[in-house]
């Protein structure tokens, strides 16, 4: 069995430790004897998204996001939207999440177009949301009922009717600091503001994604359990820290 992961713009959208998600997917699949290939895809490339089992799209700075925004619309929009409609598993974080939506409106009022795969709209806010986050996901992830991470964004994202939230904010700001929602889910696309290394401390969510990605190609796949003692210890410690700071 093989898991092919596409890492979108690893060279530009990697500001907050996003590489941790790729490392985690890679290791957790490999520890179960699954062969893993990570395909970096960046500016000017138009791959066949049908060949990937899972796409990861991380966050970057405004400057890099502009370059990515142009390239995404020019070289990848059509095939990526089609693949998403077809059920491709995508994890998009922060800037990547915003770019899959309709647009990002800057404080100056300029609208940077996204690819419109997600029914979401983002507007720049005055204050940046920075801090530890704990959410309760609306997904059945097994025993652990929380997800933990860190957010650092000035965008306020509002969800349309076509998508549902990924979870409910317990600590932090989430999508917009107002409606208590965090991230979004559409088909097999998962968008979130929990930037950087989301998956190491949320091994249940990492396995959920691996599972979904493999199921598409191979039917019901059984993932043998791993010893997640350290992962869950870090998860609990992060919750404790988030509630204290």
């Amino acid at each position, binding site marked *: 069995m093989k898991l092919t992961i596409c890492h979108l713009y690893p060279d530009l959208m990697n500001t907050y430790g996003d590489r941790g998600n790729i490392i985690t997917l890679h*290791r957790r699949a490999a520890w179960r004897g699954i062969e893993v290939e990570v395909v970096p895809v960046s500016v000017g490339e138009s791959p066949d998204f049908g060949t990937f089992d899972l796409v990861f799209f991380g966050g970057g700075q405004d400057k890099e996001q502009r370059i990515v925004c142009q390239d995404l619309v020019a070289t990848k929009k059509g095939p990526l939207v089609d693949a998403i409609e077809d059920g491709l598993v995508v994890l998009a974080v922060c800037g990547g999440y915003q770019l899959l939506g309709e647009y990002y409106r800057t404080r100056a009022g300029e609208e940077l177009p996204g690819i419109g795969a997600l029914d979401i709209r983002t507007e720049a806010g005055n204050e940046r949301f920075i801090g530890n986050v704990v959410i309760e996901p609306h997904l059945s992830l097994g025993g652990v009922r929380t997800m933990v991470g*860190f957010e*650092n964004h000035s965008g306020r994202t509002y969800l349309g009717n076509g998508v549902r939230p990924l979870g409910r904010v317990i600590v932090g700001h989430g999508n917009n600091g107002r409606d208590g929602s965090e991230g979004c889910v559409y088909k097999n696309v998962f968008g979130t503001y929990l930037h950087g290394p989301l998956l190491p*401390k949320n091994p249940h969510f990492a396995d959920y994604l691996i599972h979904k990605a493999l199921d598409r190609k191979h039917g019901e796949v059984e993932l043998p359990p791993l010893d997640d003692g350290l992962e869950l210890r870090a998860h609990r*410690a*992060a919750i404790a820290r988030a509630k204290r700071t």
Partner: protein
Amino acid sequence: MRVWLAIVVGKICAFASRFLKRGGGSSLPGALARRIEPRILIRLFEKAAMTSIIITGSNGKTTTARMVAEVLNRNGLRIVWNRSGANMVNGIISALIERCDIWGSLVADVAVLEVDEANLRHVIAAVKPKLVLVTNCFRDQLDRYGEVDTTLELIRVALKDAPAGSTLLLNADDPLVAGLAPGGGCKTLFYGVESLDSAPGYAPEVDTSEYRPQDARNCPCCGAYYEYSLTTYGHLGKYRCPRCFSSRPVPDFRATNVVVQGVHGSVFTVAFEHDPEDDFIEASLGLPGLYNVYNCLAAVACCLVLDIPKKVIEEGIAKSTSAFGRMETIRIGEKNVLLALVKNPVGFNEVIQTIASDGSRKTLVVCLNDNFADGRDISWIWDVDMERLSRHPSLIHSIIASGTRAEDMALRLKYTGIGEEKIDVEPGLDRALELGLGKLAPGETLYVLPTYTAMLEIREHIRRRSHAKEFWRA
């Protein structure tokens, strides 16, 4: 009168905090003095007829300031500097109050100030420096700044207030820093590394993967990817934009024949002016790592701008020792502790690169705190090429994860594939240190890699248990 009161209160506070052994009192006196007289920094400099040098940037501030101070001291100049690395406004005021008399007169010829990027504007406006040095700009404390570009913008805005006739000294090899050249009333000079070499047996591994932390991939003018004919570390090197042809400025101070000798240090030549036949300095540096070559080059350039004789610079550099907690070796009984501050991905990578270079088997303590001064967000540890530690299975004997986010660090280490049996989790820093020391044979070295507040805590623990010098005097 208010100035007088502020100084007296500051001095009493510094004395009290030292008497009560509550750390070095490196910021609190300044904070109190500023409450009494908000313009205390300006007042202190108004009275003093001294030259000021400001050093800022992500990495290398403390070490560079220390080298500059060493050389100036050797040249007979009386200096005042914030030696303990407390580089926000309060820390700087504390350092000055310690040195002035109660009337606010500073008996010093030169102030060497390392300044945090966010405090730079305030300090430049108050002290009117003769020279401002910007070392580099890497992703660092993004929970405070949001983005690297925000940090850069803070520096850019602050430099606009640099007085006419001052000199701006910039790292030519960092495209972000070189792009700060203002072309206003101040003179801009550049320094850079021309060529690299390695001593036999020392094998640097240049990380060229697309995952390496890279904060300046694209030309700011046209967005094209930079091309590098030489990468030294991080995004530093000889870069050029293939589309609009903007490129690294030709440095005025050039490090050539650089031979990095692993943990032992480096030797190189600094050429300057237009006659390389005559104008050069031989640097023999005892501090390890390529990043210290940059620190040294910057310090040499600084001293040359101040017209310090070449011979004095060479001697001062040769005698330079590690700044507090930066690759500092401390002897504890029959064992050694090497303390190497790690605070951002590029710096951490260079520390790993340097300590791994001799290939011997090591016991490590990695301490990750997430207090304000460390950065609340610890995501950056996933940007560090920790995999380097697992690539050579014989390199790590044992590794202890510690600090307020010990579990996060342990997890990062686990995902390098290093093997969970080699990893201990011990959040308490003093217990982690003792655990590490217990794993050593006599004569061996414990490598301790702490973030900033963890470093202060560990240093205090070592001081209590042995005879390490108090850090504010080191």
